[in-house]
C-alpha cells in the first residue's frame, strides 16, 4: 500500500478548482477531503465534494415536537392549577391551548434548527488554519486532497500548495 499525504491547494476560481478536481480524479486512490470558500460552492462543484446530508430538518422536527409538547403542558397544566371559569369555556379549552402549542412548536423548531446547524457545522470551534483562512478571505478556493504521495508533486503543479 503506497504512502498517502494530505495536499492543500489554493485555486483561484471555480474553473481552476474544477481542473484540479478533474486531474485528481484521474489519480488512483485520490480523494477530495474538503473545499473551503468564502461563499457556497456552485452546485456542480459542491456535488463533487463529499459531504453528509445535513440532519437539520430532523432537529427542526424533533424540536418542534418537544416545543409543542412543552407549550401544551404549560397551557393546560396552568389552567388546571388555577381553574377559573371564563366566558363559558372549559377549564382546559382546546383552541387557546392549540394556539399556545402552535407557538411552542415554532419556538422549539427554531431553537432546534439553530442547535442543529451549530452541531452539523461543529461550531463553536477553536481550530483554525490562519493561512487557509486568509486565502479564503481573499476569495480563493482551498481544496484539501488525500492523495498517494507519489502523485502529490504532479498535483501540486496545478495550483499553489499551502501545506503538505
Amino acid at each position: 500500500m503506497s504512502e498517502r499525504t494530505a495536499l492543500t491547494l489554493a485555486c483561484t476560481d471555480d474553473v481552476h478548482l474544477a481542473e484540479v478536481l478533474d486531474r485528481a480524479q484521474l489519480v488512483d486512490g485520490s480523494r477530495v477531503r474538503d473545499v473551503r470558500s468564502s461563499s457556497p460552492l456552485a452546485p456542480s462543484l459542491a456535488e463533487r465534494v463529499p459531504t453528509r446530508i445535513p440532519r437539520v430538518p430532523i432537529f427542526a422536527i424533533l424540536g418542534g415536537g418537544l416545543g409543542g409538547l412543552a407549550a401544551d403542558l404549560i397551557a393546560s397544566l396552568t389552567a388546571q392549577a388555577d381553574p377559573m371559569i371564563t366566558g363559558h369555556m372549559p377549564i382546559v379549552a382546546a383552541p387557546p391551548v392549540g394556539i399556545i402549542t402552535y407557538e411552542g412548536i415554532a419556538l422549539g423548531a427554531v431553537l432546534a434548527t439553530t442547535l442543529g446547524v451549530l452541531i452539523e457545522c461543529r461550531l463553536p470551534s477553536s481550530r483554525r488554519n490562519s493561512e487557509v483562512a486568509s486565502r479564503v478571505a481573499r476569495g480563493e478556493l482551498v481544496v484539501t486532497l488525500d492523495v498517494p504521495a507519489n502523485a502529490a508533486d504532479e498535483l501540486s503543479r496545478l495550483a499553489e500548495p499551502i501545506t503538505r
Partner: protein
Amino acid sequence: MTNDLQERENRLVGRLSLDRFRPGLVVGAGLTGLVALVFFYAWGIQLRDGIGVAGINRPVFWGVYITTFVFWIGISHAGTLISAILRVTGAEWRRPVTRCAEAITLFALSVGGLFPILHMGRAWKVYFMLPIPNSRGLWPNFRSPLMWDAAAITAYIVGSFLYLSLPLIPDMAILRDRSKGWRRRVFGLFALGWQGSAQQWRSLESGIKVMAVVIIPLAVSVHTIVSWDFAMTQVPMWTSTIFGPYFVVGAIYSGIAMLMIAMALLRWGMDLGDYLSDKVFNNLGLLFCAMTLAWGYFTFAEHLTVWYANEVAEARVLWSRFTGKWAGPFWTMVIVNFVIPICVLPFRWGRKPLPTALVSLGVLVGMWLERFLIIVPSLELPRLAYTLGDYTPSSIELMVLIGSVGLFAFFYFAFTMNVPIISVWEVREGWEHENSHSGAAAAAAAPQTDARTPEPAGGGS
C-alpha cells in the same frame, strides 16, 4: 473571474465601512440616541408618578401605548417575513435586502415589546405573566388573547434573532480574516470558528431554508394573534372575522414602508446604490403596490359590511370616523395609505428610491393612524352608553411615541455601524450565479457561432 469577484467584494466591504470612522452614522446614532432618551425620561416619570400621567382612563383604557405596540409589531413584519418569503421563492434580488430587513424586525420587536410592559404601569410586576409557582396564588390565564400575544411575540423575537444571526456567521468570519487587533478578536468571537468548509455551507444553507419555512407561519400567527386582542371582544367594530388577515396585510404593508425608508437612507448615506439598486426598489415597489391594493380592499370590506349592517353601536363608531370627531385622521389615513400610493407606485418612475421613500413615510403615518382609529373611537363609543368617554393623548404618551422612534433608529444605526448591513457572502454568491449563468449562456452560444462562421484570421473580435 475571482479577481473581479474579489474586487467587488472588497468594494462592498469598504462601503459597509466597519473599519473606518463614518461621521454620518455616528451623528445619526447620536441624534437618535438623544431622542431615545426622551422615551426613557417619559417612562421614568410614569414609573415615579403612576400610570395616571398617561391619558388613558375608563372607558378608553387602550390609547397611544397599545396603538404604538401594534404599530411596531406590524413594522416587524418587514424583515423576517419578507426575507423568508423571498428566500423560499428563490428571488435573486433579495440578496442585498435580507439583512437590512431582518434587522428591522429584531429592533421593531424589541421596541414594540416594551409597550405592553409600559402599559402595565407597574412594570416591575411583569413577571406576573410567567406561569411560575408563586405565593400569590395567581396564574396567567392562557385563555386570554393577551397571553397568546406574549407567547407569539416571544417565539417571534427569538426566531427573528436567530434567523438574523445564522447568516451572519460567515460574514463575521470574512471580517475576522480581514481585520486586525481587537476587531479581529471581536469578529472572531462572533464567527464561532467558521471555516467555510463545504459541509458547513451545506448545513448552514439547510438551516436557513428550514428556518425560513418555520418563520413564515410564525410571522403570520403573530399579527393574527395581535388582531385577536381586539377581535375576541364585544367592542363595536372589533368583533370581525377578517381582522386576522387585515392585520397581517397591514403589518406587511407598514413593514415594507419601513424597509423602503431604511434602504433609501442606507443607499444615500453609505453609497450603496450598486447593491440597493433601482431594480431592488422596483421589485419591492411592485410588492408595495400589491399590498396597497390588498390593504385598500380589506379596509373597504371592513367598513362596507359595518355600514350596510347599520348596527347601532357599530354605526356610531363608523360615522365618528367618517364625518365625526375622527374624520380628519380617518381621511388622512385613506389619502396617505391608499390614494397617494396608488397614484405613484404603479408607475416605474414611482418605484425609484425617492418617491418610494416619500410614499413610505406617508404610509407609516397612515398605518399608525389606522391602529389608533381601530382602538380609540371604538373604546370611546362602547355599547353601553353610560360609559362614553373622551381621549386625548397626554404629553407623556406622545414623548414615549416619539422616543420609541428614536430608540428604534438608534438600534438600527448602532447595528449598521458594527455589523455588515448587507450580507456579503450572499451577495457574492449572487455574483457567482450571475457569472456562471452568463458563462453558461456564452458557452451555449459559442459552438453555434463557430459552426456557422469560420474563425476570422488573427482571432478577430
